[in-house]
C-alpha cells in the first residue's frame, strides 16, 4: 500500500505544484497575491472544455486554447486593474483586494453563462484506464501532470536563471526602480508575466479539470486556498520552492490519510505547514527579501 500511496502523493503534490507555478510567478514579479488565480484556473478549464466540445478539437489544441484564452484574461486584468493601481502607488494589499473583485466577476459571470452544474471534458479526451506496474496503478493523466509540472518548473527556472529576460524579471521582483534604470521595459514585462502566469493557471485548470472531470464555476476556490499555502510555504515567488511546497503538501495529505486518519488530514497538513513556518519564517526558500512597498 505504501508504494501506491507514494505515487498518489507524488501526483497530488504535482497537482498543487502545477497550480502554484503561475500563481507564484505573478506573486514574485508583481508582488501581488492574485486571488483571481483560482478563477482564471476555472476559466481555462471552461474555455478548453468549450473549445473542445464545440469545435471537436484534440486535447493539445484545447490546452493551447486554454493557455491563450486565460493568458488574455490575465493580460486584461493587468491592464485594467493592476496597472492603474501600480500607477497610483496603491498600498500593497489593495491590488489583492481588487483581484478578489475580479474573481467574483469571473466566477459569477461563468455561472451566469454556463450555469452552476458540473460540466466535463468530452469523454475519451484522454485514456481513463490505469496502467499497472508491479501492483501500482497510475493513469496517463497522472503521469502527464507529473511530467508537465516538472518540465514547466525546469523551463521556468532555467528561463529565470539563465536568460536576460529572467534576470530582468528577478530584477523587477527586487526593485522595479533598479530595473528601470538598467533599461528594462518594466511595464512590458509586467504584462508578459501576467499573461504567462494566467496562461499557466488556465493550463493547470485543464489538466486538473481532466483529473476531477467535474468543472463548476467555483472549482478554483479550494485550489486557491491550497495554492496560497504552497506559494507562501515555498517562499516569495520561488519556482523551486513552489514545486517543493506543492510536493510537501501532497505528501503531508496523502501520508496523513494513510497513517493518521483522513478526518485529520487537513489539520495535519496545515499544522505541519504552521510548524515549518515557525522554523523557517521566510518559507522553504525564503532567502529573497520581501519587497517593502
Amino acid at each position, binding site marked *: 500500500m505504501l508504494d501506491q500511496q507514494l505515487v498518489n502523493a507524488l501526483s497530488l503534490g504535482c497537482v498543487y505544484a502545477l497550480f502554484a507555478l503561475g500563481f507564484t510567478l505573478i506573486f514574485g514579479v508583481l508582488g501581488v497575491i492574485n486571488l483571481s488565480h483560482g478563477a482564471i484556473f476555472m476559466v481555462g478549464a471552461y474555455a478548453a472544455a468549450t473549445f473542445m466540445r464545440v469545435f471537436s478539437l484534440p486535447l493539445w489544441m484545447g490546452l493551447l486554447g486554454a493557455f491563450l484564452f486565460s493568458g488574455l484574461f490575465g493580460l486584461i486584468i493587468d491592464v485594467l486593474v493592476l496597472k492603474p493601481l501600480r500607477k497610483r502607488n496603491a498600498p500593497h494589499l489593495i491590488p489583492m483586494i481588487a483581484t478578489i473583485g475580479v474573481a467574483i466577476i469571473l466566477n459569477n459571470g461563468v455561472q451566469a453563462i454556463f450555469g452552476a452544474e458540473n460540466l466535463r471534458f468530452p469523454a475519451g479526451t484522454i485514456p481513463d484506464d490505469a496502467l499497472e506496474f508491479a501492483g501500482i496503478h497510475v493513469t496517463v493523466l497522472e503521469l502527464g501532470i507529473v511530467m508537465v509540472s516538472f518540465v514547466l518548473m525546469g523551463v521556468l527556472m532555467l528561463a529565470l536563471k539563465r536568460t*536576460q529576460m529572467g*534576470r*530582468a524579471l528577478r530584477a523587477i*521582483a527586487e526593485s522595479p*526602480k*533598479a530595473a528601470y*534604470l538598467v*533599461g528594462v521595459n518594466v511595464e512590458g514585462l509586467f504584462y508578459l508575466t501576467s499573461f504567462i502566469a494566467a496562461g499557466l493557471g488556465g493550463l493547470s485548470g485543464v489538466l486538473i479539470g481532466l483529473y476531477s472531470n467535474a468543472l463548476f464555476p467555483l472549482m478554483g476556490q479550494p485550489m486557491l486556498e491550497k495554492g496560497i499555502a504552497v506559494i507562501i510555504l515555498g517562499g516569495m515567488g520561488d519556482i523551486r520552492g513552489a514545486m517543493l511546497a506543492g510536493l510537501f503538501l501532497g505528501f503531508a495529505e496523502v501520508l496523513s490519510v494513510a497513517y493518521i486518519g483522513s478526518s485529520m488530514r487537513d489539520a495535519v497538513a496545515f499544522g505541519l505547514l504552521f510548524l515549518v513556518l515557525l522554523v523557517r519564517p521566510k518559507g522553504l526558500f525564503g532567502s529573497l527579501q520581501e519587497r517593502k512597498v
Partner: protein
Amino acid sequence: MTAPLLKVEGLKVSFGHVEAVKGIDFQLHEGQITTLVGANGAGKSTTLLALSGLVKKTAGRVTFDGQDITGLAPHKIVSGGVVQVAEGRATLTTLTVRENLELGAYTRRDGAAARAADMERIFTLFPVLKDRAEGLAGNLSGGEQQMLAIGRAMMAKPRVLLLDEPSMGLAPIIVQDIFRTLREINKLGLTIFLVEQNVRQALKIADRAYVIETGEIVLEGSGRELLGNPRVQDAYLGN
C-alpha cells in the same frame, strides 16, 4: 562651441502641490564632465530621475543628440544611451555581481562577444568585481556596490552617464578611487553628468557646473570659476 549633446529646457517637476524643480535649463556637452550641486532637497535627484523618465515632468523639453526624448519611456531612454547610477546605488542584491553586469547590457543588441569584451574592460577597471563575480551583489561592501553600479551602467554602452552622489558613504580612499575612475572613463570619451554633495571635488573635476537652489538654477560656470565664487564658497564649501 559645438551643439550640446543633451539639452534641457524649462524642466519642471511637481509632487502633488510641491514643485520640486521649477523650470530649469542646462546643457551637457559631448566629452565633458558637467556637475550639478546644491543643498539637501534642492531638487538634484529629482532632476536626474526626470531625465531618466522615472518621475513625470510637468513641463519642459529634453533633447538628446538632436532628438526630443522628453516623453520617452525609461527603457527607451536607456537604450538611447542616457544611463543613470541612482542615489543609493540600486544594486540588485539578490543577483550575482556578474548577473548585475549582464543586466546592465539589457538594452544592447550587439551580440555576446561585444558584451563579454565590455565586461572584461570593466573588470580591468574594477578588479575587485572580478574576484567577487559569482557572489551575491548584496554581500559587497558599500564601496564595492558603488563600483558595481558604475560598471553596470557602463555595460549599457552609455553616451551620457548620470551619477547621483556616487561618493556618498564611502571611505576617503574609495572616494578618491571613484573620482579617479570617473576621470578615466571621461577620458575615454564618455559624457558625464555628476550630482554631488562633495561640492569641492565635483567642481574640481567638472568642466561645467550648475548650482541649484530650491528647484532653480542660480549659478553656472566652469568648475574652476564656481570653485572661486564667494557665494559658492559661502553656501557649499563651508569656508
